[in-house]
C-alpha cells in the first residue's frame, strides 16, 4: 500500500511508455491536431482524471478519477469510449486497451529454465535452506526451497523459534544471509549465537574457527521489530531495497578472503516470526464477517508481498504461525485446525485459516507428541520432551513424520526416519 511499491496494481497510466500512444489514432483526423503521442497521452490522462471518470467510478464506489492501470482495467470496455469521448473512437479505445495489456503482461519463462535454476547453485549458492533434520531435508530434497513461502505451525513452546534460528545458521553456513522480522519480540540473540557456535563446532570443517563462523552468522542477520500490521507491511515494502543493497555489497566482496568473519553474504532467507501476532493484535477477534474479511485482507496483503519477495530476490521465506492455545488438536480435523485465533468455535477461524493455508507452498507442523507415556518431564536440562514434526504440505514430497528433541544445538532428530525416499 505504500507508494513505493511497484506492483502493477498501483502503476500509473502516466508512466506508460510513449509507444503505447504512437499511431493510436487511425486515419486522418484533422480536428485532432496533435497526433503527437505525448500530447495525446496528456489529453487522455486529463480526460481520465476528470468528471466522466468519476462518474464511471462512482458506479464502482471509488472516487477521484482514474489514474492507475488497475482502475482503467476495471472500467468495462464499453464505458471507456464514453469517458474518452472526443479523443478516441471506439476502435481506438480497444486498441489502447490491448496495448496496455501488452505493456503490463508478464514475460514467460520456460520450465526447463526454472528447473535449471532450482538445481544449480551457481547464483548465490543456496538452492535450498537445510533445516538440520535429516529426514525432513531428505524429503524436501535439500531443505526449505528458495523462491516460495514456507510455514511453520505449532503451539506455544514447541520449538518454532528454535527452528528458525537453526535455519538462519544453516543459511549462513551455506553462504547466504538472513533477515529476521521479529514481530513477537521473542528472538534471543544470545541463544542464536549459542546455536551458531554449537552447530558450526559440530559440523564445520574447522572446529577451531567456529567462533568466526558464528560471528559471520551474526554479521549477516538483520533484525526488524514491527509491532503492528501496518508496520509489518512497511517493513516488507522496504525489504526489497535492503536486499538489493546487501546483495550488491556481497557481490563486491565476493573476491575477498573466505574466512573473513565480517564478510557480507547475499540474502537468502527471510523469517517472519510470527504472522499471527500482528494480525491478532490489530484486528478484532470478533466473529462477524466484517472482522473476518478485514483480517483476511491483511493476511492476503502480507502473503502477496512475501511471495513477491521470494520470487524476485530468490529467497526462502519462512513464516511462523501460531495455533490457538485453548485448543485440542487431537479432536479436530487435522487439516483445518491450523488457525490463528484463540476462540475457534468454528465460525470464522477456519475460513481465515483456510485462506492463509493457500498461501504457503510448504508446511511443517510441530507438535508435542500426545502420547502421555512418552512424556519425560524434566530432569534433562534442555527441557526435552519428544516432539514431532510433520511435513503436511509440499510439492516434492509425501506427508512425512519425524521426531525430534530440543537440545543445546537446537533441534535434533531423535528416531530414524519412518518413511522417505532418498534425495
Amino acid at each position, binding site marked *: 500500500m505504500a507508494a513505493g511499491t511497484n506492483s502493477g496494481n498501483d502503476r500509473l497510466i502516466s508512466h506508460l511508455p510513449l509507444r503505447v500512444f504512437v499511431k493510436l489514432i487511425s486515419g*486522418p483526423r484533422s480536428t485532432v491536431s496533435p497526433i503527437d503521442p505525448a500530447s495525446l497521452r496528456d489529453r487522455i490522462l486529463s480526460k481520465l482524471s476528470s468528471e466522466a471518470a468519476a462518474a464511471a467510478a462512482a458506479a464502482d464506489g471509488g472516487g477521484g478519477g482514474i489514474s492507475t492501470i488497475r482502475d482503467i482495467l476495471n472500467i468495462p470496455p464499453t464505458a471507456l469510449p464514453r469517458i474518452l*469521448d472526443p479523443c*478516441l473512437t471506439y476502435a481506438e479505445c480497444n486498441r489502447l486497451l490491448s496495448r496496455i495489456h501488452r505493456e503490463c503482461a508478464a514475460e514467460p519463462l*520456460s520450465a526447463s529454465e526454472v528447473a535449471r535454476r532450482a538445481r544449480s547453485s551457481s547464483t548465490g549458492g543456496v*538452492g535450498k535452506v537445510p533445516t538440520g533434520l535429516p529426514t525432513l531435508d531428505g524429503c524436501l530434497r535439500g531443505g526449505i*526451497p528458495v523462491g516460495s513461502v514456507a510455514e511453520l505451525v505449532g503451539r506455544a513452546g514447541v520449538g518454532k523459534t528454535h527452528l528458525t534460528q537453526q535455519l538462519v545458521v544453516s543459511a549462513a553456513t551455506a553462504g547466504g544471509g538472513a533477515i529476521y522480522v521479529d514481530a513477537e519480540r521473542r528472538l534471543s540473540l544470545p541463544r542464536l549465537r549459542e546455536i551458531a557456535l554449537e552447530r558450526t563446532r559440530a559440523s564445520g570443517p574447522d572446529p577451531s574457527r567456529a567462533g568466526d563462523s558464528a560471528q559471520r552468522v551474526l554479521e549477516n542477520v538483520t533484525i526488524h521489530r514491527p509491532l503492528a500490521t501496518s508496520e509489518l507491511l512497511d517493513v516488507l515494502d522496504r525489504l526489497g531495497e535492503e536486499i538489493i543493497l546487501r546483495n550488491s555489497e556481497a557481490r563486491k566482496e565476493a573476491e575477498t578472503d573466505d574466512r573473513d568473519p565480517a564478510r557480507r553474504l547475499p540474502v537468502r532467507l527471510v523469517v517472519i516470526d510470527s504472522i499471527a501476532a500482528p494480525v491478532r493484535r490489530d484486528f478484532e477477534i470478533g466473529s462477524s464477517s466484517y472482522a473476518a474479511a478485514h483480517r483476511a485482507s491483511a493476511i492476503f496483503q502480507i502473503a*502477496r508481498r512475501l511471495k513477491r519477495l521470494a520470487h524476485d530476490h530468490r529467497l526462502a521465506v519462512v513464516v511462523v504461525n501460531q495455533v490457538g492455545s485453548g485448543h485440542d488438536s487431537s479432536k479436530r*480435523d487435522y*487439516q483445518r485446525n491450523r488457525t490463528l485465533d484463540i476462540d475457534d468455535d468454528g465460525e470464522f477461524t477456519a475460513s481465515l485459516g483456510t485462506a492463509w493455508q493457500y498461501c504457503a507452498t510448504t508446511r511443517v507442523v510441530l507438535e508435542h507428541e500426545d502420547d502421555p507415556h512418552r512424556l519425560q518431564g524434566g530432569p534433562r536440562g534442555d527441557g526435552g520432551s519428544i516432539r514431532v514434526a510433520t511435513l503436511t504440505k509440499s*510439492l516434492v514430497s509425501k506427508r512425512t513424520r519425524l521426531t525430534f528433541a530440543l537440545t543445546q544445538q537446537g533441534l535434533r532428530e531423535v528416531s530414524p526416519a519412518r518413511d522417505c525416499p532418498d534425495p
Partner: protein
Amino acid sequence: MFPLCSLPVSNVAHERAESPKPLLQDIDLAGPISNEQRSLPVASQPASITYRQNTFSIPLVSLALRPSTLTALIRSGYSSTGDVMSSCWKGTSAEEENNGEVGYTRCEKDGGGIENSSSNNANYEHFAQDLGCSSSQAADYAHEIDDALVSVGLPMISARTEIKGIGETDSTNEHGTGSDDSGTAPNRCIFPATAASILLSTSNSRCSIGGNGHNQTANTRHIVSFSQSIDSLLGGGFALSELTEIVGLPGVGKTQLAMQLCVDARLPANYGGVEGCSVVIDAEGSWSGAAGGDRLWSMADAMVEHVKTSAERKRMLKKEAMHANTSEDGMNLQFPSWLTPEAVLDGIHIFRVHDETSQTCTLYNLPKFLLDLELKGTPAKILVIDSMAFHYRVASSAPAASTGNDKRKSNSLSTTHNLTRMAAFLTELASQFDIAVVAMNHLTTRIEKDDTNNQGGMKMVPALGESWAHSISSRLMIDHHRHFESTSPTTIAHMDYELILAKGEYINLSAR
C-alpha cells in the same frame, strides 16, 4: 449489435488472426450491378456509383460511434447511414464520373486518404453545411462512420479505400489480435471479402509445420492425466476447447495434477497425447520456485522413462509377433528421439504474475503469444491458471484506503465484473485456439448458522462465485479422505490419502 453481424465462431480457429469478417454473400448489396460486373477487376468499373448509392442503410445509434459524433449527427437530423450517404454524394455524381478512373487507381495503390483530401472534401461540403461545421470535421465524422461500419463488416459509405489499422482491432471482442504496429494498412477494395478468400488466407497462415502427428492430433480431444480414475471421471481426460476447473483444499494436490497435465500434454501423438506446448499462469508462485522446478523435472523424467519402456515393450511384442521380420523402421517410429526431459520442459511456458493487473493483462495478451507458438509449429494445447482465485481474492478483500466499507464492497463488485469478463474471454480463447483451459480455484467457508450455533455449520464452497461456476464446463473437486470419528485421525487420514496416490496411476510415483 446487429443480427446480421453475428460472427461465426468455429471450433477450428479459422479466423482469429484478422478481424473476423462475416459472410456477406447472402446480402444483396448492390441491386443494379450484375454478377458479371462484380467479378470484373475494380479498375474497369465505371458504373460503381450506383453501387455506392445502395438501399442498405442502418440507423446510426447502432454503430459504435463516439457520443459527441452521434449527438452532432442526430441533432442535425441524420438518423441513419442512408441519410449521411445521400448527403455526402449529393451533387457530386457528375464529378465522380470524371474522377471515377482516378478514384479506382487510388484504390489499387497504397495511397491514403490524405492525398485525396481535395476530392474527398469536395464530397463532404454539403454534409458539412448541413451539420454546421467545417468540412474537415465533417470528413472526420464520415471517416468514423466508415470505421464503425467496416469493423462490423458492412460496406463503407465513402470511396475511401484504406483505413489504417483496419485489420487490427476487433470491436466485438475484448482483445486485439492483429499486429498493431505494422503501420502499413492492407490494400482494400470496395467489395467485401468472400468466405472463400477468408478460408484460403487463414488456412495458409495457420498451417502448422509441426509434427507428423498432426492428423492424429486433431482426433485426440483429451489430455490424459495418467490416473485412470480421474480420466474416467472426466470422460477421457481434460477436454480441449473447454474450460475445466480444479478445486480443493490447500495441499490436496491441485498443483501436482496441473503439473502432471502439462507434462502429459507433451506426449507424442502416437502415444495418445496431443503433443502440444503448455502455458502456465503462475499466480501463487508454486511453479517458479525451487520446489516447482524440482518437481517438474522429476515428472518430465518419469514421463520420458514411461514412454521409453512402453516403446520397448511394443517393440518386443512386435518382434515376437512377426518372428523374422525385423521391423527396424517400426522401432524408429515408436520412440521419438526428441523426447528428452529438457525438451519436455522447454515446451512449458510459465508466466509469473504478481497481482491482479498483471494477471489480467497477461491473459488478455495471450492470443498473440498463442498465435506465435502456433506459427512456430509448436501449438499450445493446454493453459493452466494456477490459481485463478488467489489474486481475485486478494483484490476483492483489499481494504479501503479511505472510505472503509464502501470501497471494499466496490472492490469486490469490480472484481466480480472483471471475473465475468475474464470467464467469457477464456471460454472463447479455449474454442478459438482449441486448447484445454484448466483453472484452479480455492475453497472458502460459507457459514451456515444452525440452532446450536456450533460446529457443523460450516460449508466449504468454491470461491469466485456463481457466474464463474456457470462459465466452466467441468469442475473437479479433490478432497482428502478423512475420518472424523476415528481416535487418531492423523494416521488414518494421511494414510488413506497416500493410498490413493500410490494406487492411482500417477506416473510420477515411479520417480519418488
